[in-house]
């Protein structure tokens, strides 16, 4: 053959050989296409959903259990119903609904299963199961639902719901319509609780009838049941806290100082977890979600960022002691406040009413003297050559108490809070002309500082432990085995030596026990409690005008003084002085936890009956609606 005729011959043979090679690779060598049974169109996967793990409280009370339910599933591509009317009648839906749902399922995917009717009644299930083979493209799926014997701790437990489209697409474990934990422990410990679903590949004939297993079950797997989880939560204490916070907004966090275990995590307002189960779940969820005034889905105990107010004074006292700028014997005089600068406004008031009598650290704590802590704060900053160095050192010490960053507890939501450092102030004062007094509000826990209730409780726990804390956590045991995450076992030390805690704790004890202490009226006979009140100013802006609202009421406490069993932080929005609402709540919680009973009953009803909606929140709403 002459004149380049061989080129076509060459290309023809080349193509042929190349194609044979490719076919050989695809059809014989590469097994990935043939090994997945689902690539076989006549094979469908049947999932066997394992029992989801139960959740218990620290005293082995069952908090979350399961109940069975049956869903009708549809594969739109395979639907071929002869008698639609009868089918609708059994399911008690209208023909219009039937069409609408089928269309919705087809939009999701014509080939994948979607839920058609959720949660059949037992009797419907019995009827339908008999006739199911007649309805091509439909089948019944058994499913677990959650059940909450105690109607509380919704924020801790979370709920389960169908996976959203994003998860179904991006996580290969989940298929549309399957359940996954949202919020709380259900979300955080999803992998333990859910177990592993079993899969059975079955062959079907053209009439949608199963005709046997695929390859004798070579690819089938067994379901692995979910693991049971025991929480650190004390459900009795939790429920008591929820009861006390009724008609208020706020949060309570109670920890066991020696272990960092969360005993109670209350947020108010909250909701009954049983409302997040079953057919009404999405309706209820929308109701809660759209309630932007009360925000029942917002966990104030974990996400609420507030100024800690005077509860922060102990920390400043401790830092001043550690820095050696004061001793427990150092004194200051307070004349209803003090002047910290030359400008007219540079005056910080104080309500300790000591009228110039020399004041030591203990008394400064139990009378919550602003002047004392302003001086000690200034001294511990001004000890250093520049204000920047001083603030950085102070900030580092404070952060060692678990403030100013995510705490690292095992719940899925949280906030960092804010502990300012030199860099922070440099940003606000670009000329860097700020000094210790510029930041004087930090001395009394106002100003830039923000903390969440759980951070405050953890700080209290560190004080109770005299210098260390264990990161708070909610899970105690998984499948009856104590958790072994070192983060929740190994103590984290602060930079304060334990000897300096003595005078501070004594002062905190006197908050309850000394006449003139800010929580004198909340003391409980026979219980050595240590605490500190906080009262935080807060404002709203209405039409550009700054309006001061009632103060937030804060209280932190631990008890007993020796070998403390509980550390607690209570926060009540617009509750007034720390001593009026938060202190009695903290005291009642401690008494309930340690003594299991309340001696003076009227104290609990008094607190419970405070209705801040009538007294405060409705007024705020009115103010806001005026603009």
């Amino acid at each position: 053959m002459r004149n380049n005729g061989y080129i076509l011959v060459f290309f023809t043979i080349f193509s042929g050989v190349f194609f044979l090679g490719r076919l050989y690779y695809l059809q014989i060598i590469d097994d990935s296409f043939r090994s997945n049974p689902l690539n076989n169109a006549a094979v469908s996967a049947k999932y066997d959903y394992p029992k989801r793990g139960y959740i218990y409280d620290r005293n082995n009370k069952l908090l979350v259990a399961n109940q069975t339910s049956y869903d009708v599933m549809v594969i739109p591509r395979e639907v071929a119903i002869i008698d639609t009317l009868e089918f609708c009648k059994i399911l008690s839906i209208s023909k219009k609904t039937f069409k609408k749902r089928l269309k919705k399922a087809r939009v999701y995917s014509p080939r994948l299963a979607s839920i058609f009717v959720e949660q059949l009644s037992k009797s419907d299930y019995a009827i339908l199961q008999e006739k199911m083979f007649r309805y091509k493209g439909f089948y019944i799926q058994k499913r677990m639902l959650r059940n909450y014997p105690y109607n509380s701790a919704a924020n801790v437990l979370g709920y389960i719901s169908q996976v959203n489209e994003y998860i179904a697409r991006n996580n290969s474990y989940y298929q549309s319509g399957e359940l996954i934990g949202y919020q709380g422990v259900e979300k955080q410990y999803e992998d333990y609780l859910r177990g592993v679903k079993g899969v059975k590949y079955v062959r079907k004939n053209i009439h949608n009838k199963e005709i046997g297993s695929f390859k004798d079950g070579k690819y089938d797997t067994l379901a692995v049941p979910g693991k049971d989880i025991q929480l650190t939560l004390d459900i009795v204490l939790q429920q008591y806290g929820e009861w006390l916070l009724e008609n208020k907004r706020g949060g309570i966090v109670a920890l066991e100082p020696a272990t960092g275990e969360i005993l109670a995590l209350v947020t108010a307002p909250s909701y009954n977890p049983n409302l997040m189960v079953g057919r009404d779940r999405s309706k209820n969820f929308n109701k809660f979600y759209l309630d932007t005034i009360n925000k029942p889905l917002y966990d104030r105990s974990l996400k609420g960022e507030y100024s800690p107010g005077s509860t922060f004074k102990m920390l400043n006292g401790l830092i001043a002691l550690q820095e050696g700028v004061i001793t427990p014997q150092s004194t200051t005089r307070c004349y209803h406040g003090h002047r910290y600068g030359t400008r007219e406004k540079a005056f910080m008031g104080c309500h300790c009413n000591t009228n110039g009598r020399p004041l030591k650290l203990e008394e400064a704590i139990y009378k919550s003297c602003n002047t004392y802590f302003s001086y000690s704060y200034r001294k511990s900053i001004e000890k250093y050559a520049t204000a920047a160095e001083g603030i950085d050192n102070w900030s580092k010490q404070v952060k060692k108490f678990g403030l100013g960053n995510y705490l690292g507890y095992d719940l899925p939501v949280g906030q960092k809070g804010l502990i300012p450092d030199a860099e922070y102030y440099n940003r606000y004062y670009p000329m860097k002309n700020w000094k210790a007094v510029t930041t004087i509000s930090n001395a009394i826990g106002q100003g830039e500082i923000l903390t969440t209730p759980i951070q405050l409780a953890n700080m209290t726990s560190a004080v109770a432990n005299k210098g260390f804390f264990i990161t708070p956590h909610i899970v105690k045991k998984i499948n009856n085995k104590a958790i072994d995450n070192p983060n929740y076992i190994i103590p984290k030390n602060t930079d304060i030596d334990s000897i300096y805690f003595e005078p501070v704790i004594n002062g905190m004890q006197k908050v309850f026990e000394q006449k003139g202490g800010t929580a004198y009226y909340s003391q409980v006979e026979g219980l050595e409690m240590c605490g500190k009140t906080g009262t935080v100013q807060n404002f709203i802006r209405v039409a550009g005008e700054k309006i001061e609202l009632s103060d937030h009421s804060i209280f932190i406490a631990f008890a007993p003084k020796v070998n403390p069993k509980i550390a607690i932080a209570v926060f009540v929005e617009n509750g007034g002085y720390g001593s009026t609402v938060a202190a009695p709540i903290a005291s009642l919680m401690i008494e309930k936890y340690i003594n299991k009973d309340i001696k003076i009953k009227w104290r609990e009803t008094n607190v419970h009956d405070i209705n801040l909606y009538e007294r405060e929140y409705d007024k705020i709403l009115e103010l806001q609606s005026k603009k």
Partner: protein
Amino acid sequence: MISKSSNILLELDWVLIFLYLILVFAGWFSIYAVDFSSEASSLINLSTYYGKQLVWIGFSLVIIVLILSIEASFYERFSSIFYMLSLLLLVGLFIFGRTINGQTAWYSFGGFSFQPSELVKVTTALAVSKILSDNLFDIKKFKDFKNVLIVLFIPFILILLQPDVGSAIIYFAFVFVLLREGLSIQLFTSLFTMALLFVITIKFGISKTLISTSLLIILVLYYASKRQKLFFRKNWPYVISIFLGMLLLIFGSSILHKKVLKPHHKDRLALWLRMENDSKKIKSLKRTYGYNNDQAVKTIASGGLTGKGFLEGDRTNGKFVPEQHTDYIFSTIGEEFGFFGSGIIVLLFVLLILRLIYKAEEQKSKFSRIYGYSVASIIFVHFTINIGMVLDLLPTVGIPLPFFSYGGSSLWGFTILLFIFIKLDANRSNEW
């Protein structure tokens, strides 16, 4: 003039005819497998693809008889007129044509539609053969060569305007014909090398391509100067300009790829050259551009060594592959008859093309030879692009598998194409 026999049946090349019949009926069974359902029973059911295809096959037999009964010289003599008429059909599309899937490529009467581009392949092949077979024609002279180019260019552009890229690409098949008839191979190789360099640059990056091609040139120089001592000294301007051209091409390719191509072009290139590493991106591409190819490959792969059996292919039954009865018909064979079945079909096509080349070379008349060569080239390009696409070796291009794919126009077009050659071949003993 030695006449073996006056009986045309003995003159026919039965190898080609058998190959044709096997491919056509294998194609029909594949279409039946795609379209089959348990309810419809009659074979000649005009609501099904296989029913209609059976009718087209019947008509093809009539066409074959007609072609074989007309005198062979008729095709050569009237080739220009056929060509003109078929161009008129193409032009008429812009006025009377029907638009299907965005392509104005169809005339439709009643329930049936006809795609003229399938016929224009035949008339162009005839016209090109006519021009090239002129004894005064010299392909080396641009004055002559340009005439062939124009003949090819007009239908190419008209089809591109429909727009039907797949059918237009076919006209590159005539490169093989021109090469056979004396077109300088340098032009072909340099174009081929340029395309190859472009692809290699995009796939492996500038530095790797540069180093390896430089090494290759140095190697070639080394051997050349071993054989001929003064090779470089004599040819240095040539060598240097090749090297510079190569540099220009490599950097140009890279710039073209990075700056000129749109993201969706790049995505297609990346998918084709297997350059995408992000598995999420691959997934999403396979759901969009790559969807057909991806499904076809899965379907073929699921066939294994021997296949699932006729009508047992569940991916075919489940209609997983879009356009399976037309462009992706080969995947049916892959699934139901496995490696054996699909391998045999590939071999049959190779055999058909090689037989055509062999028979073309046997021709005494220049016209018949060139026409035979055109037939082989056109079928080769269809075969390579179609199966390459179905096996996910080439990007998606809508082009049917000859004799196999569903469609009257396509089947008739290829039947006419092939049988005119068979008629010419049968007549060769009458030529001198």
